[in-house]
């Protein structure tokens, strides 16, 4: 008589360490970490990958991955990644950054890394707020959004408008793959993973700077439940930060993975 064997549909990726993360329950940092780890597994890159951790909630990202990692000063990850990749061009180098890290203090570093066409991959977690320091306004905070440093809501007159990084960086000739995805439901998470895969493919093929901007949640500082936070992304963030492909190198566009 034949025996039915189970298929494993999903198991924890090898590129994630076994440590329990310190992220809040329902925080999509965990999803982003998982996707990066899954892609590193699928592309067999774990043993040559060096990650650069930011300052922000994910300052301890190095504890959650199973590959070499370094810690950058706030905003400087693209510069650190440049230094590493230039002396170790055969390694896979990525940065993992939040919206304060990348779009505020690190604005010069990300712009120039993209302009130089550094063959690094950037995972950009956009949750429209500063999580680690307790919920202050970010360059990506939506107009009217209440944060601890915009207590009556972001007033565009005095506090300006949110910055759309994917659009801006896609205008730089050194950029090879710049897209925005979201993590608010399974369909979008699948697409995000595909984008992360193509971003690393861009690096492996030397096709220039790659970045995946991921619309993410911050349930704690948004003062929403995890599921409500995902709905907030869909209903409020996506209209301001449209999902899509902003720059795709031709070779990557033709790639079937």
């Amino acid at each position: 008589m034949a025996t039915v064997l189970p298929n494993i549909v999903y198991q924890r990726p090898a590129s994630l360490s076994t440590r329990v993360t310190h992220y809040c329950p329902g925080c999509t940092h965990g999803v982003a970490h998982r996707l990066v780890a899954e892609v590193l597994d699928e592309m067999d890159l774990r043993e040559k990958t060096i990650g650069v951790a930011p300052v922000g909630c994910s300052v301890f990202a190095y504890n959650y991955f199973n590959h070499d990692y370094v810690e950058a000063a706030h905003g400087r990850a693209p510069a650190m990644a440049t230094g590493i990749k230039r002396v170790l061009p055969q390694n896979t180098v990525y940065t993992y950054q939040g919206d304060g890290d990348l779009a505020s203090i690190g604005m010069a570093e990300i712009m120039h890394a993209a302009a130089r066409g550094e063959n690094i991959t950037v995972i950009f977690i956009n949750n429209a707020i500063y999580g680690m320091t307790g919920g202050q306004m970010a360059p990506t905070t939506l107009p009217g959004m209440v944060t601890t440093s915009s207590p009556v809501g972001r007033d565009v007159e005095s506090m300006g408008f949110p910055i759309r990084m994917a659009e801006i960086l896609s205008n730089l000739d050194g950029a090879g793959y710049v897209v925005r995805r979201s993590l608010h439901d399974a369909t979008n998470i699948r697409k995000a993973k595909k984008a992360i895969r193509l971003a690393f493919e861009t690096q492996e093929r030397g096709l220039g700077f790659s970045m995946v901007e991921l619309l993410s949640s911050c349930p704690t500082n948004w003062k929403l439940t995890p599921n409500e936070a995902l709905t907030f992304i869909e209903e409020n963030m996506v209209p301001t930060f449209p999902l899509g492909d902003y720059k795709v190198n031709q070779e990557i566009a033709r790639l079937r993975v």
Partner: protein
Amino acid sequence: MALKGWIEVNELHCKGCSLCVEACPQDVMSLDMDRLTPKGYHPVHLHAEGCTGCGICAIVCPDAALTVYREAKQPARVNA
């Protein structure tokens, strides 16, 4: 006939965030209010039959706390 699936929940990692509960297309997941994980969260569990092993719960899980299994379509030959 729907495939049979099942999940394993790693209770060290599950933080009871309920993203999988909401995402499950079969509505067979919920937090187990009778139990606590070592960190003090209510872990998720299957509260009914009907899991198809689609894996959507694992896709949305921020903690990679779920392992998802599904019966193979073709029965495998063992010692045939």
